[in-house]
């Protein structure tokens, strides 16, 4: 059964006079790993924001797990958002607290208010949290202060937070933009593990080779429009040339 994780129909988003994304038709099924390719400013980040419900479409419709994101009651929308894990470019870690807090931040929604608040005062490093940190190779850093870690280590904290959230859909915005090739492959491998066999990954990338190695499908954005949508095997170089060609 191929359930639709995401379905966009003519979806777009404008900010005032400028249109970031327009007329996108896109269906992503469970288990797919989608690379989003495109030059800077092509609308990749806007697409991800539509997918995790932090932006509402200004045209067309966006469905997450079969429910339209527009006009949902807050509680229902939160329920949907719990199933989506996002790693943004800025990582969005809470710098001043211990690493453990940042990992546990991945399940605050699951815990509910009283337990979430209690964990802020007295966090218990349980097996799940430790396991997530071990999985990203940071088992030693549980009680370290987040701001003292290096850039690469902080990125892995963000992934551990994702692992513990156990989302059905993982969105990653240029997670390997500033990493060397070995590290980049490592991070994409970890993201793949965050989405178990049933899970779905949507990742924006600049390197087609990484897309070929880690994804099953590629879509190309140019000036806010979807210009191709193809299985990864058919990602031909003429498509890419067109994508990055100057207008």
């Amino acid at each position, binding site marked *: 059964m191929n359930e639709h994780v995401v379905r966009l129909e003519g979806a777009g988003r404008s900010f005032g006079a400028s249109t970031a994304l327009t007329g996108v038709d896109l269906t992503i099924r469970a288990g797919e790993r989608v690379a989003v390719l495109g030059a800077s400013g092509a609308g990749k980040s806007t697409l991800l924001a539509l997918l*995790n*419900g*932090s932006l509402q479409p200004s045209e067309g419709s966006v469905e997450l797990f079969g429910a339209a994101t527009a006009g949902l009651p807050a509680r229902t*929308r*939160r*329920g*949907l*958002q*719990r199933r*989506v*894990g*996002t790693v*943004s470019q*800025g990582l*969005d*870690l*809470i*710098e*001043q*607290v*211990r690493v453990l*807090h940042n990992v546990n*931040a*991945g399940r*605050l*929604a699951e815990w509910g*208010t009283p337990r*979430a*608040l209690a964990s*802020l005062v007295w966090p218990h*490093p349980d097996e799940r949290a430790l396991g997530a940190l071990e999985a990203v190779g940071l088992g*030693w*850093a*549980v*009680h*370290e*202060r987040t*701001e*003292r870690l*290096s*850039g690469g280590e902080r990125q892995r904290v963000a992934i551990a937070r994702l692992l513990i*959230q156990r*989302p059905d859909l993982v969105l990653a915005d240029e997670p390997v933009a500033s990493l060397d090739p070995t590290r980049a492959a490592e991070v994409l491998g970890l993201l793949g593990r965050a989405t178990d066999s049933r899970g779905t990954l949507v990742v924006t990338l600049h390197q087609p080779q990484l897309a070929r190695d880690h994804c099953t499908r590629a879509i190309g954005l140019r000036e806010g429009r979807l210009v191709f949508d193809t299985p990864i095997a058919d990602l031909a170089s003429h498509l890419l040339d067109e994508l990055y060609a100057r207008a």
Partner: protein
Amino acid sequence: MTDLVEVARHDRDPTAGPDRAGRPPSSCRVTGRQVALRRGAGALIVLLPLTWALQRALPQGGDIVNRGGVPLIGDLLGKAWSPRLDGEFLEVVVDAAVTTLAFAALGTAGALVIGLLGGLVLSDVAWARRPPWPVRTVRTGLRGALVAIRSIHELVWALLLVSVLGLDPLVAVLAIALPFGAQTAQVFGDTFDALPTRALRALRDAGAPAAPAVAFALLPPAGPLMLSYAFYRFECAVRSTVLLGAVGVGGLGQELVVSLSSRNWDEVWTLVAAVIVLSAVVDAWSGRLRTDMAVASCSEWSAGDAGGAAGTGGRRPGSRWARWSAIAAAPGLVVAWFASGVSLSGLTSERTRMLAGRLLDDLVPPALPRGGAGEVTAAVLDTLAMAVLAMAIAVLITLVVSPWAVAVRRGTGPPGGLAMRSLRWISWLVARIVLLVLRSVPPTVWAVIALLALFPGVLPGALALGVYTGGVLGRLVAESWESVSPAPREALVRTGVPGAVATVAAVVPASAQQLVTFTLYRFEICVRETAVVGIVGAAGLGRLLAENLNFFRFPVVMTLLIASFAVSVASEVASRRLRRAIRA
């Protein structure tokens, strides 16, 4: 008085920061046990001094409230809506306001001259290579002298100067210029050292003599930062000048003290309003200048972050507001000179020379007060208790008021309708005004009011100082909270966490860290400011100092100055250690 900057800048230790690259992970492993121990230690560091200070402030079994004074507070409040507004008195008020501004401007100018010269001597950059040994000796001496000069509160400086110069306007100017100048030298020296040195070295290598090379290569890049600091200092100087009124050197402060002691409450309210308006205008002006030049906010100055901006210089050094402010400074100073009636003749008169000689003779050797060493120890403990309690009160005020005083971010916030938004805006305005009033009314006035209702001692002093410091701390913390990144909170909300929980989880840790840092900075300043409330009769070293100065017991005064110096250095060291420990 409002030296917000203080020691912050020179205690940045280049090796203290985390070493991001190449560190073996094993070297910084922290265990859960260590975290728990640190938290326990943190709780003790807060609770023990607080309990001790409370015990010291509350007399066992004795009365705290002076029942005879309570009706006076009622009288004072009763006159709030009928301040004295007749033409004759308003003329006095305007005159006093002009005098205050003039003193502040001249004092700031003096401080800048001292600061520029001192900063050049102190900075390593200005010397092309390692300076010769006579210079190094002088530098070490100067560094020590500057620390000593700024450790004495400007009000104490004023008291000392009055006993030499009499009630000369020069007292006010010098009392501002000396401690502010010492502080400015420190800041300017650090600023110069933070600048890139290539341009200067190139000029020197091309054979330019030292002075023009420094003027060409060092001053222009440091210019915006120095200008912005100059106006920040002016802002502080206005408040300090009002405070100096307590020793009778003229201006709004003196009128306030006169009206308070003759219990003309209607005049007090007019004068308080004048003080608040004056500081609001000067605050707004200097704040506008700082944002225009994109150099540093008050909180950055206080936390010592402004050095970071030194390398790049101001982003918009040519802003019209800044340019006109700089151009207006010179004629402004001339006007201030004539308006304040300052003259240098007092410095060189026969009488001054005689009195200064006698004062210096009398100061050494130091002697103990009549109560012996015990009296000094008790005063030191009172001073510390007062500072601890004042900080506790200030933190309480900050926690209650500052969350409302944080500017509303555009485009975010609750999606509520117009009513919610205007409510939020009104609460912001009210909170800002409350903080402005708390910090604009000088602590001497708060102390006189507290002493109406409470018996002299630690408690009224702590209350007065706490209310005032609450106004300062609340504004600093609110400003710094505005820079806390909203991204982590939004990330949590995106994963379905309810807004309130997300705020507690993501915003509170960052905000708490800012609050702790600023509280520790202010604590150092607060210890020194206890002198102020002491002088109007609360308790502590300040009170002992004022008593002994009244009776010209200069050897005792010397002992008390040494004791104040020791206390302020000790609290500085303690607070710096704590700050470093927190960063670990």
